């Protein structure tokens, strides 16, 4: 690859990352449920993206490429040293509704929904996030997650089944504040 090409790609990544840092952090939160860990994931992701900028195809979506990097860093590197082993059970400390969200003029329904999403296992959580939160097509989500499309479908189906059950029990209704 010509030096000028690498330079172009580096610029594209450098300019493209700042506007999406918040979204990367959010994906980090969806995976870890921990603001500090999310910060760390974003940092590691940015570093990796800058190091590997020659792999980025300008004109494609930087966010999806970096989501893939972030997810892989989490699953292959950081998760193992986290106390949260991702066993599929709900970590009592896992929280999407952080102080920042509670303090703000946040839609109460949004908080209810996040509380429900917290109860999903990691695989379902990230499928729900990518498809319903980020609006990715199943195929696109499968590429980001590096899984077959069928896996995305079964995770979404499982998530919806679980949430439908919560709804029946009325668990999603938090006391009015």
């Amino acid at each position, binding site marked *: 690859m010509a030096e000028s090409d690498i330079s172009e790609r580096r610029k594209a990544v450098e300019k493209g990352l700042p506007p999406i840092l*918040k979204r990367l952090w959010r994906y980090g939160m969806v995976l870890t449920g921990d603001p500090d860990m999310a910060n760390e994931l974003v940092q590691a992701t940015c570093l990796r993206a800058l190091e590997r900028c020659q792999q980025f195809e300008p004109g494609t979506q930087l966010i999806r490429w970096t989501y893939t990097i972030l997810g892989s860093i989490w699953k292959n590197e950081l998760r193992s040293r986290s106390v949260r082993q991702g066993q599929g059970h709900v970590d009592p400390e896992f929280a999407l509704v952080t102080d920042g969200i509670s303090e703000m003029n946040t839609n109460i329904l949004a908080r*209810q929904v996040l509380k429900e999403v917290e109860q999903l296992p990691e695989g379902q959580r990230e499928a729900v996030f990518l498809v319903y939160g980020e609006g990715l097509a199943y195929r696109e989500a499968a590429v980001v997650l590096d899984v077959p499309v069928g896996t995305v479908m079964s995770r979404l189906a499982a998530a919806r089944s679980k949430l439908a059950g919560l*709804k029946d029990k009325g668990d999603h209704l938090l006391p009015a504040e």
Partner: protein
Amino acid sequence: MNLSNEMLVAYIDGELDASESTALADALANDPDARARLESLKSGGRPFAEAFDAMLHAAPDDTLQAMFADMVAQTSGGLINGRVSDRPADETVVPFHRPAPAQSQQARSTPLWQMAAAAAVLALVFTGGLISGGIFNEPQRVAEQMPGWREAAARYVALFSKETLEYMPSNVAERRANLAEAESVLGLQLTENRIADPDLDFQGTQLLNFNGKPLVQIAYLHGGQKPVALCIIAAATNEPAPPANETRQGLNIVHWVEGGYGYMVIGDVPEDELNRIAERFRTQFS
């Protein structure tokens, strides 16, 4: 035809192509069990995009930007001089980056979704004395507070699309439960007689939070396309104020105060039409 939960969810999400979708709909017609599962899976839907967008507001953007600027400075080797200066675009104003066109198409092809699409108005019910006497009695505080709640409501409503409203709960029991919750928070009866309107199709109720005060939102669609909102807020004064028009966020607004509550009807609907709707709500709530 395979009517697994996976296929049903793909159908709900508009991920099937036209022929698959048609075949699945045909198969559903003869399979009550699958229809029941379909309804159940639909009820497992939520306004996810909106919920996840709340998380963006909590992101420590300053920290992240500083971290990245340092990283670039340390690793750039002169490719780009210094900091990345472009401020990030504000992601938070586009919370509903939801539907692929196929999805809404799909959504409309089922009776339930059709109902949702048929009409939506949004009623925002603000409580907690936000309007407070100040707004109408003390001009100085108007400047501080008025842009407060009406502007906040307008911004919120401006984000809604017809597709957003399709994510509001569609089953009667849940709608009722949400209404009851809103009623108790607001201390104002929200009976069907009061919140129904012949030109508005009720979509659902939400509790919102404005400056720490609870705020209730009831959603409707107007003309099958346009979200409209009625906002009610507990006022600290019993001083009534007659209806007045204004425009915020490109949306028409009618607002008034009566019986200790501030009201606001808002939507991308012609002013005279909105005035008629507001007048009916005024009568129903008086």
